[in-house]
Structure formats: C-alpha cells, structure tokens
C-alpha cells in the first residue's frame, strides 16, 4: 500500500468527521456523537493546529491532530498534545498508525518538544499499549471515566 502523509486542509473536514463518527461508534465510552458543531470544531482545529492525514490513492485512511500547548500550572513549558488519532477500521494493520506516529515523532524532534498522547476508547487497550511502547512512547498512567 502506497501511503502518503500530508497536512490536513479545509477540504478534509467531511472525511475527518466521518472518521470521528466511526471512532465514536466503536468506543466503549458513551461520548456524545458528531453534530453540526463538530465540523466547526474540526475546521478550526485544522486551521489553528497541526493535523496530518494519511492517504492511499487519494482516500484518507487516518488522521492525527496535534495541538501545541502549555501545562495549566506552568505556561513556560510547552508540549504537543494529541487530541485525536483515528484510523479507518478497514485499513488497520497496514502500518497506517505507525506512519502517523512516525510523523508525530518527527514533529517532536524538529521542535524539540515532548508529545502527550492519550487513549480513551476503552477497547483493545493491551494492543495499543504494545504498539505505542514499540514506537518509543512511555506509559504515563491510566485514563478513567465515571458514568
């Protein structure tokens, strides 16, 4: 599979929204669904942050959204925070996620900034643990929900 990575633009909002919808249907947690506002949020996110899409034959298979920010308690230290990492269910196990993660690591190294990435789907946690450890990420702690 010939995978190409590029920065997302406004024309990608609909496809990223579809991916988000698929992710929300899959997750074990009762998140709110995609609504008209989601497109506004996505368009704004793409414009103001760093969002990559990965495609094959001009079809977007996955996306990752990175937001530069500081810590609430310290505005002198910056990091990239991953707001979403979504791969189309059909195209998993094709190295799609690994390529996106490589791009994030490149971004981190180029800017000399750490990256924080949170997994909140409640499914396949062990598999994701193994995958991110193999990619050189360090486990920082569990994420929990109530209700």
């Amino acid at each position, binding site marked *: 599979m010939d995978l190409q990575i590029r920065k997302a633009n406004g024309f990608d909002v609909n496809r990223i929204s579809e991916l*988000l919808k698929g992710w929300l249907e899959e*997750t*074990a*947690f*009762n*998140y*709110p*669904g*995609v*609504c008209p*506002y*989601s497109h506004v*949020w*996505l368009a704004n*996110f793409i414009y103001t942050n760093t969002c990559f899409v990965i495609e094959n034959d001009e079809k977007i298979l996955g996306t990752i959204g990175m937001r530069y920010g500081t*810590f*609430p*308690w*310290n*505005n*002198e*230290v910056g*990091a990239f925070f991953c*707001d979403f990492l979504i791969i189309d269910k059909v195209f998993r196990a094709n190295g799609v996620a690994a390529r996106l993660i490589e791009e*994030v*690591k490149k971004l*981190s*190294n180029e800017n*000399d*900034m*750490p*990256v*924080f*990435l*949170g*997994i*909140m*789907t*409640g499914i396949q*946690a062990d598999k*994701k*643990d193994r995958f*991110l450890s193999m*990619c*050189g*990420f*360090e*486990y*920082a*702690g*569990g*994420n*929990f*929900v*109530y*209700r």
Partner: protein
Amino acid sequence: MREAILSTANKSEVIIRRATEWDITNVLTLVALWIEEAAHSFIGNVCPSTGVYAAECIRSKLVLLAECEKEIIGILILKENIQPWDENVRFIVDEIFFVRKEYRASNAARLLLSKYKQILDDSGMSGILIMDNGTDMARKDKFMQRYGFKRVGCSYSYGEI
C-alpha cells in the same frame, strides 16, 4: 460554605472541603509536591504562572482539599470542560490528584474521589480522570477501578525538552 465528609475509619479525622482564597499557599505547596514527584521532567516546575493557576482554580470552586488535624494532606483539582466536538456536552476532568506520601495509607484519596463522584452525580456530568504523572501506575490503576472508575485507556509521552 464548608462541605465536609468525615472519616471515622481512622483515628484522625480526614475532612474533605472546597478550597477557599485563604488556601492558595496550601494549593501551591501540594501542586509543587505533585510536580516534584512526577516521573517526567517536562511537566515543568512551579513558576510565576502557577500562582495564577492556583487562584483561578480556587475561584472556580472545583478544588477539593483533604485536611487532617488542620494540615492539608491531599488535593483534587477539577475543571469543567466542554466536549470539543459538541459544545453542548460538558464534563468534569481532573488536572491534579495528589495525597502527601505519608498519608497514602489514610482514606484521604478515597474520600476525595467520593466527593468527586458526588459532584458528578449532582451535576449529571461525566467525569474523566487522567493519571499522567508517570508514578506508581499499577497501584493507581487498581485504586481507581476499585472506586467505580472505568479504565478506558492510558496516557503516553514521547521526547524530552
């Protein structure tokens, strides 16, 4: 208004209450201890903006303190957020959850979580707890699940400053 939960399980009573403006030094002290304990050097240190952060958190009335014999032994800083992709859905997330090392065998952490759950039940919002300081993770995992929080994933970090 002082909201308290009294613990009768220990000899010393642990009281949970909301922080007031008079607690800013206590809040800063516990935030500093939490940062000091974190496994990641890039979480930062106490800086001038930490005082502003503590004051703003207190003002939002979402800072819970655990007090034992007039000493502040634990803190849970919460924040109300909107779900990024749906502005009509709100939830309450933790930013800092910390109990002084010497009081970890007390029930301070459990009482802080109980109060958090009560706030969630009263408001009808969902709660999210993110354990990301990289220390004592297996114990924290067990603890959260024992007290009714469902584990949905983990946090990871990459790179250094």
